[in-house]
């Protein structure tokens, strides 16, 4: 690891950027640029406790992420219709972005607000006051954000999948509707294996599903499309939707390339924290699909340059860890690296949003197939099989299954995933729970991660 690539504090990052801006060769200007300190002034206090990659591309990523609220307000001011997508990781957003003057965003993403603002915003307390208490997943912060109306503009249309989804989100969304925010619910059946002789179709990710289930999802997405037609005042054509799918695939292809380089490079070229955030952009393009592409291009340029130069952001012997589930506290990613690990494969619950949408079929069929490939919709065994296959492909030496506190699925899935990884790959697995703020639990999380890293190192010596 060179000094140029070592992790920095937020103050160091801002000083570095100021120095670069004043230098004879300043960084190329980009949208949403500015010092990170301005976000702290807006309440994003967690930024003060994170360690950052100093690359300009990474700073661009952060600024893009942290300015989404401004972007949404500007979109509305410019006459765009806003669509809030819930329990939707990369389907309705693809559909919505195919329309002119429609901006969609991922409301469940509000679950990071308590972390980013270090609970100062009180969203979880507001959610509790409306019945969504501590026994539920931090996604309940979304309810608080609707009540306080301080974190994003209230969308013109709310859309939520329902059926084979997590109970927490479904309960929170229903509570939201009861507070006067109507929701368009669309049915997502529990994906099952086709029965012998039953017509079946392939799904992204190497899965198969009964043709009848795909047809159902397609008809449900048709209801969403008609609602969007009405909202946008525009009857979307299949050609427009196909173009939207191609654009989404362009984004996914870049992320795929980034993952491939980051996970397979001999020495790690991008820290875990920035990598996780980069993956999150793919779900809904952070409300600006074009800038998402440019952010990915900049990151790709950076990691390619680092790999070519042999520059690493971590020691060369860092243990290669596959991480399962997103973390409510972003700092957990820093913690992994502080314990001697590096990210080498992820499954943040939206692997279907990483796979290219099928382009050889009708566009609504493509969306339906992709939606049914959602790992949450199918059995944990399907998800575990993909995790094991990806962990093998990326050469993981250990796996972390990160539990989301209160999430209905985590209690059941963790065991299945850990078992599959142990049985198929013989890798050490640690299950940890990451709350929105890990500070109080950091010592115990750290010791679990250190033990995992030590175990993986010991296996190297065998």
């Amino acid at each position, binding site marked *: 690891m060179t000094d140029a690539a070592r992790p920095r504090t937020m103050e160091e990052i801002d000083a570095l950027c100021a120095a670069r801006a004043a230098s004879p060769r300043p960084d190329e200007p980009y949208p949403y640029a500015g010092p990170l300190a301005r976000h702290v002034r807006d309440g994003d206090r967690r930024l003060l406790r994170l360690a950052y990659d100093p690359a300009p591309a990474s700073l661009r990523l952060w600024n893009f992420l942290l300015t989404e609220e401004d972007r949404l307000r500007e979109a509305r001011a410019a006459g765009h219709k806003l669509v809030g997508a819930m329990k939707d990781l990369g389907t309705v957003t693809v559909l919505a972005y195919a329309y002119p003057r429609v901006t969609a965003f991922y409301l469940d993403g509000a679950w990071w607000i308590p972390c980013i603002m270090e609970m100062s915003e009180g969203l979880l307390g507001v959610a509790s006051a409306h019945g969504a208490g501590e026994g539920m997943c931090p996604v309940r912060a979304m309810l608080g954000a609707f009540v306080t109306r301080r974190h994003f503009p209230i969308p013109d249309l709310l859309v939520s999948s329902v059926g084979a989804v997590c109970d927490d989100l479904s309960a929170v969304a229903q509570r939201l509707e009861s507070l006067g925010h109507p929701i368009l619910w669309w049915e997502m059946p529990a994906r099952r294996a086709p029965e012998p002789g039953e017509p079946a179709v392939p799904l992204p990710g190497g899965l198969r599903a009964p043709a009848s289930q795909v047809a159902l999802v397609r008809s449900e997405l048709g209801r969403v499309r008609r609602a969007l037609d009405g909202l946008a005042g525009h009857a979307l054509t299949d050609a427009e939707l196909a173009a939207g799918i191609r654009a989404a695939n362009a984004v996914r292809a870049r992320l795929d390339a980034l993952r491939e380089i980051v996970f397979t490079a001999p020495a790690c070229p991008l820290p875990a924290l920035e990598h996780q955030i980069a993956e999150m952009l793919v779900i809904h393009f952070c409300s600006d699909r074009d800038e998402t592409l440019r952010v990915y291009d900049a990151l790709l340029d950076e990691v390619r340059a680092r790999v070519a130069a042999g520059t690493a952001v971590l020691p060369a012997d860092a243990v290669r860890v596959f991480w399962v589930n997103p973390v409510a506290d972003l700092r957990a990613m820093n913690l992994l690296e502080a314990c001697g690990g590096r990210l080498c494969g992820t499954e943040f619950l939206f692997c279907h949003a990483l796979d290219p949408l099928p382009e050889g079929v009708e566009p609504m069929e493509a969306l339906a197939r992709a939606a049914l490939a959602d790992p949450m919709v199918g059995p944990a065994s399907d998800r575990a099989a993909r995790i094991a296959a990806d962990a093998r492909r990326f050469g993981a030496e250990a796996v972390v299954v990160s539990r989301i506190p209160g999430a209905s699925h985590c*209690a059941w899935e963790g065991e299945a995933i850990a078992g599959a990884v142990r049985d198929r790959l013989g890798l050490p697995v640690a299950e940890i729970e990451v709350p929105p703020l890990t500070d109080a639990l950091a010592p115990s999380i750290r010791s679990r991660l250190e033990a995992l890293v030590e175990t993986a190192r010991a296996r190297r010596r065998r």
Partner: protein
Amino acid sequence: MGDGLRVAYVSPFVPPEWLEACGAEPRRLRPRRDARDAGPATGACSFARATLAAALAGRDADAFVFATTCDQMRRAAEQAAVAGARTFLLNVPATWQTPAALRLYRDELERLARAVAAWGGRAPTPAGLASAMRRHEALREDILAEAARRGPRAFDRLFAGPGAHEGPDPPAGRRVPLALVGGPLGAQDADLVDRIARSGGAVVLDGTETGARTLPARFDRRRLDAEPLDVLVEAYAGALPDVSRRPDDPLYAWLRREVPLSGARGVLLVRPVWCDPWAAHAERITEATGRPVLALDLDGDGGARPGLDGRIEAFLEMLR
């Protein structure tokens, strides 16, 4: 009853009429929760764990039908199948307002029929189904009439298995009328009605998942013989006011209608620990019914968490 094939289930969306028409003996269970139950101990719904334990034990049935009405039950079904239990996972639509939702449910019933046939049952006939529907509807009407006379214990007759018919009738006397609303009661929760009675209350409406609320709508007798499966689908998937439906308007329409009709002065909202679907309802039920609500988490061998009696007594005191 057909050929001794016993098919167990816990969800009200599994129609016993259909299982019977498919040549099986339907056995709706109310499993007893136990801290030693299979499945993850932390964060997992105690009722889903108890159901998984019942499916794995295999004492009460030859096969088990799970329903997708909640995430945790879906996961429990997976674990039961992985462990080798003979299971079927019925996809129950959460939406109810579209023809597609009813079609999904109908398709799933037909898939279930094929599974039951493969287990040793038979293909259902319209006449056989209509006959089973008449019998079960008569039973339900009888139970409802009995419940009006002697309270929620009448619903025990809907269930098979150990613990479903225990306990004496509550003692007579002047009592505070209460509605019991919420998730499923386990076998040991029969004790809850006694606790309420001992504290001076009387359950006049059982709106739990194992009570009156989740009985199917009355069958359309005019169409029963001609198209029994359509009538069955409408009565279950089209009308059941379950907490899993989206939107949950039917649940609240039921509460607005039935709670005032019952004369209940307060509502006890019960749910198994870690049951998410019944979280965030207390305030809404108060708004919908105009009655105060006491929310209780059910768990453990005694059917309730420590301090339950005191909380019920305080609630009744407030209502007197």
